[in-house]
């Protein structure tokens, strides 16, 4: 039956949305599958295999190394600062853009997209130009013994800049499509502005907000370019996980490099799994509050 299926005239399949024949479909699916396997899945598996090449012992040995532990701690610290900050500011910016009319709104929208459109290296360089020893504010900072470049504050700043758009980009289109009528209804019912925000605006965008935060978090932990420029690569002090991976690799410590890489990849996979799980678990509620994608 399956074999003869493809020889049936198309008119017997009115439920089909496209007119591709069965072989075409099979080829397309195979190509897509091969491509995803070769480009995404295979390399990812390699990371874990390489990490385990010399056995679990060596793998755990890597994580006992103080420099590696410091890199993990720093990455978690940076994400713990950058993600809540960008969630709060992104939420506020989206709220202002979607619910109010003001001058310079288009400029603000463009600015929010800027970190996506310029290279992360440039985002990092901007801070070097501002706060570096030769930068505009460098001498003043130096006098007051404040260290930003080649120190943790610079890494946090660079990460914040690069990951800023994730939350805002997720929220703005949704909030715009939802309009202001529910907020107006709440105000007419006597609610304060803050109560309206908490009980009407926020619940209507909570899933988009969560998506934005998850994506922001994945990028904050994985950011390489911008952080690399401002970090100075001081082992045990200013190395984040991605930077540490590079250093280990350049030291020919392949097992170490892949061990940290597999941890980083694992964190990203957990993020994706969380997203998929939430999508599946709350599918009905999502459909009710979000625009149709």
């Amino acid at each position: 039956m399956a074999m003869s299926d493809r020889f049936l005239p198309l008119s017997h399949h009115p439920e089909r949305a496209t007119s591709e024949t069965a072989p075409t479909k099979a080829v397309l699916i195979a190509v897509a599958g091969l491509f995803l396997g070769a480009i995404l899945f295979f390399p990812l598996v390699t990371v874990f295999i390489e990490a385990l090449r010399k056995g679990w012992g060596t793998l755990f040995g890597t994580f006992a190394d103080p420099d590696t532990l410091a890199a993990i701690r720093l990455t978690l610290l940076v994400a713990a600062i950058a993600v809540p900050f960008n969630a709060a500011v992104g939420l506020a910016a989206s709220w202002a853009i979607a619910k109010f009319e003001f001058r310079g709104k288009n400029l603000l929208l463009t600015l929010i997209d800027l970190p996506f459109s310029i290279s992360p290296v440039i985002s990092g360089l901007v801070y070097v130009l501002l706060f570096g020893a030769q930068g505009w504010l460098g001498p003043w900072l130096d006098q007051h013994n404040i260290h930003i470049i080649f120190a943790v504050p610079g890494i946090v700043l660079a990460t914040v800049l690069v990951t800023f758009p994730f939350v805002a980009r997720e929220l703005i289109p949704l909030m715009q499509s939802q309009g202001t009528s529910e907020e107006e209804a709440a105000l007419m019912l006597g609610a304060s502005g803050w109560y309206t925000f908490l009980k009407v605006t926020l619940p209507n965008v909570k899933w988009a907000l969560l998506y934005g935060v998850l994506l922001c978090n994945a990028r904050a932990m994985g950011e390489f370019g911008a952080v690399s420029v401002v970090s100075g690569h001081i082992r045990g002090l200013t190395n984040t996980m991605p930077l540490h991976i590079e250093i280990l690799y350049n030291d020919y410590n392949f097992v170490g490099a892949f061990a940290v890489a597999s941890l980083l990849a694992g964190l990203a996979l957990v993020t994706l799994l969380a997203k998929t799980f939430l999508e599946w678990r709350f599918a009905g509620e999502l459909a009710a509050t979000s625009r149709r994608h």
Partner: protein
Amino acid sequence: MSVPVRVRNLEKTFGRYPALKGVSLDVEAGELVALLGPSGSGKTTLLRAIAGLEQPDAGQVLFGDIDANTLSLRERRIGFVFQQYALFRHMRVIDNIAFGLRARPRSSRPSEAAIKSKVLELLHLVQLDGLEARYPAQLSGGQRQRVALARALAIEPRVLLLDEPFGALDARVRKDLRKWLRELHQRTGHTTLFVTHDQDEAFELADRIAILDQGRIEQVGTAAEILERPATPFIDSFIEGIARREAQARDRTKPHVVASR
């Protein structure tokens, strides 16, 4: 509890487009007035200005003898029903209706038990008993509209403003709701201003009708007054359909009179 609404020379311009050009209108306490006019004539703008959602450029709105400008949105105590319902989509019907009561400052907020019984009472009033646990997306258009009305009534408004309350519904449901709203108004006695562009709806439902065109009130009066003495050629043509139907209705009762002559 209901107060009269007095609108004095209200003006509102969007950019350079004048939406209201000196509108004055009185709605007496407990009166049901229809605001009738073609699309774009400024009906919604007038309603929003009275509600305080739009700041007029000039003119005054009085509730009783209090200038609306001195009142916050909460203090105005206006029940506003939006054209597109504007129900809180993430809340069940019961929470939608309870919203205005829960949003009150703690000192004047009723207990949860009191809120619940009040909500159920309102649900009964709008004939939606048993639907309290539904979400707005699970209701028909007419049911949503009634939830919106119940939600507005929950704050014990002094004035009700309804923007095309039945605009999005089909003709049958409209007729039913029209009758129902009339009865509801007779029972509750709220000062009510409702927007419509449906002449039949206005003439059947309202104590008085205000006809708006291009940002100006062309005529205010009872249905009989307007039908007998249309103030301007615009009104003459605008109510033509109704006048014809009235005449036909009269004709149907006439043969008897003609025969006796």
